[in-house]
């Protein structure tokens, strides 16, 4: 295990410990509010809101809940490599890395958190191995080729490493296409369509619907 790996597994223990206090918080909250009124409807919401991800300009400016600041900086770059800026902002531009850090902490198991930390540590390790510099200091083309190879399981990347990267890629897509930019600028969003039409014209470059109702 490299020094970096040790650091990473240490940081992935923190959320597991914190889960204990989250559990107590969830239990305590529901005991407190009872169920008499509509206010209790809000109780689980209140828990969620307290823990909710609020868009930061850039979460890579400080340490995250799952990731170190260095990992968040790399993740931001990976987000922008997977979904770059075109006529709309890229995934890293809308803080998808910050969203992933928060989402992993609250909605995913410790094992998944750890696997995503490992993906970032692998990326860093490969940069050091191949170029002897940090991933973030690599030229864009080198970054692109490395992540592209990881996504396709090419070169020295194993099937398991590719599989874990696909999970991270899924989180990037989920974070981006549920963000305001992703859902309503890159894609088409219609909160209240006014009715259902079974046929409207579509040409190849039209954006698909980013509004999915309850079912994302």
């Amino acid at each position: 295990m490299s020094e970096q790996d040790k650091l990473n597994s240490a940081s992935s223990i923190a959320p597991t410990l914190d889960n204990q206090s989250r559990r107590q918080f969830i239990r305590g909250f529901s005991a407190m509010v009872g169920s008499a009124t509509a206010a209790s409807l809000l109780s689980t919401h209140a828990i969620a809101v307290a823990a909710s991800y609020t868009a930061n300009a850039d979460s890579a400016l400080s340490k995250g809940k799952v990731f170190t600041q260095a990992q968040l900086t790399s993740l931001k770059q990976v987000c922008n490599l997977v979904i770059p800026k075109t006529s709309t902002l890229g995934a890293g531009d809308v803080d998808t890395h910050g969203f992933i850090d928060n989402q992993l902490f609250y909605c995913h198991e410790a094992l998944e958190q750890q696997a995503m930390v490992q993906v970032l540590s692998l990326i860093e390790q490969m940069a050091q191995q191949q170029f002897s510099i940090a991933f973030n200091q690599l030229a864009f083309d080198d970054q692109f080729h490395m992540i592209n190879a990881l996504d396709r399981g090419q070169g020295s990347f194993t099937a398991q490493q590719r599989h874990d990267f696909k999970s991270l890629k899924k989180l990037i897509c989920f974070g981006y296409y549920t963000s305001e930019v992703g859902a309503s600028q890159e894609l088409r969003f219609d909160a209240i369509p006014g009715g259902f039409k079974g046929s409207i014209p579509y040409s190849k470059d039209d954006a698909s619907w980013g509004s999915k109702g309850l079912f994302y």
Partner: protein
Amino acid sequence: MNDNIYINKSSEVYDAIVIGSGVSGGWAAKEFCERGYKTLMIERGRVVEHRKDYVGENKRPWQQPFRTRIDNLLVQEQHKIQQQCYAFTDATKHFFGNDRDLPYTTTPGTEFSWIRANQLGGKSLLWHRQSYRFGDYDFAANKLDGYGNDWPIRTPDIANWYSYVEKHAGISGSKENLPNLPDGEFLPPFDMTVPELAIKEKFAKLYPDRALIMGRAAHLTKPSKLHVEQGRVQCQARNECQAGCSFGAYFSTQSSTLPAAAATNNLHIAPNSVVESLIYDEKSNRVKGVRVIDNDDLSQREYFAKVVFVCASTIGSTQILMNSTSKKFPNGIGNSSGVLGHYLMDHNYNAGARGDFDGFEDEYFSGRRPSGLLVPNFYYKPDAKRKFLRGYALAGAAYREDWRSTQHQDGIGVDYKNSLKQAGKWKFGLHAQGEMLPRFENQMRLHPTLKDKWGMPQIEFDCQFSDNEKNMMIDASEEAERMLIAAGLSNVTRYVSNGAPGLAIHELGTARMGSDPKTSYLNKFNQSHEVPNLFVTDGASFCSTAVQNPSLTFMALTARAVDYCTQEMKSLRM
């Protein structure tokens, strides 16, 4: 709504008590109130006010704390079972039960998923609103093949009541004149997409007895004057129904039956009132009222009425009936037959097939249609050559892939992003809704020792799909696959899954109707064979499941039972 409608303690003897406020309870209350009867609706959960309490409604994904997902510890601690429901999301989770407070057990080797909605409006807030009549083949099914007891009614007994409830609730659909699925009083159907129309046309040629029709659903595609007067407007095609619809564009208790009942000034509601048992007077052989445990402080109180309608959901109703014991009825009120709790059924949604439908690249749709398509049951006539009794419907819909599917492709960067922006291939699937036989062995019973926090004996389920249901699912997956290939789909794959009973959320039976008091609990008017002022009008009363979604039949049976009951009250036979 007027706050005076909610009561806590009362010594008044109401004309009618209605236990439950879901689809059936809402209808019972409306029908009694509109006939001038003072009615008390009892709800075990909290008040949910139309519009005001739809806290998850119309939230964009980026406005939700976890972008529609839910804190995994909250799920683990409180919603382990409820999360199995497709509609359990961050915007709806507060309308599902808290599994921590609602324990139940299953007999070893069996499974049952019990989805709960304990609040004013019950599951009328959460249902998918598919609304179909039962036909003559359905009411005759048990008699035709000899499995189960004969329904004591046929379509002429209930057709007018279906019409009556359809007009009020507002059901969209197309008249099809099919032998196996009666038409109703329909608002216009939702549009089909162009690929769906193409598949419909192919089925019409290849399978003349297997029509593909637009799903019939309790959504106002074109509200009538009556609906507008109810404060309801046209469906906006958000498909966020289970979060609550402030447009009242669907049927729920809050949008439809409750305002009608409240407008009469005959309605009172006792929320947070967990019914523990019915109060039975042996001398008069009548139910006098109900014993209630307070949902919050667990104190006890009683409510009284001349008649009691039990509409607490199939399992909830039977739990109350079983827990209402007396010297005369040691095994549950009105249960001399011993059938109470038996013949528990659900639908079986464990098979189907799906594939790609090439072409139609220049076709798209707008809006999110809150309904799919249906191939009604084509095995409605008994046939000894089939390996199983009864049949299934096939439900499905066409959709175009989007980033949720295309994200899995290899690649990163501008090309990848541009590819995810576009709409992908058209896909279409057919998924079985199979009938489950009424089997004596499939049952719910009161646990001998375990109780919940209100002191109610916990339910123990002993319920399994039999070989009949399993063979049916194999057939359904093969037929669905065959039909999709014949219709020209590619990459067709079929599946058979293993979901436990309960997950179709169409629990039925356990207090069935019938002509013979020795083998059934209720008569043909949903009235107890033994205790004349006791009625059960929810899914507990069903003799068989048919393949249709049952809620519309809850409505019709309930309205019909209230009509009968009030006539009996007037003629002083009650």
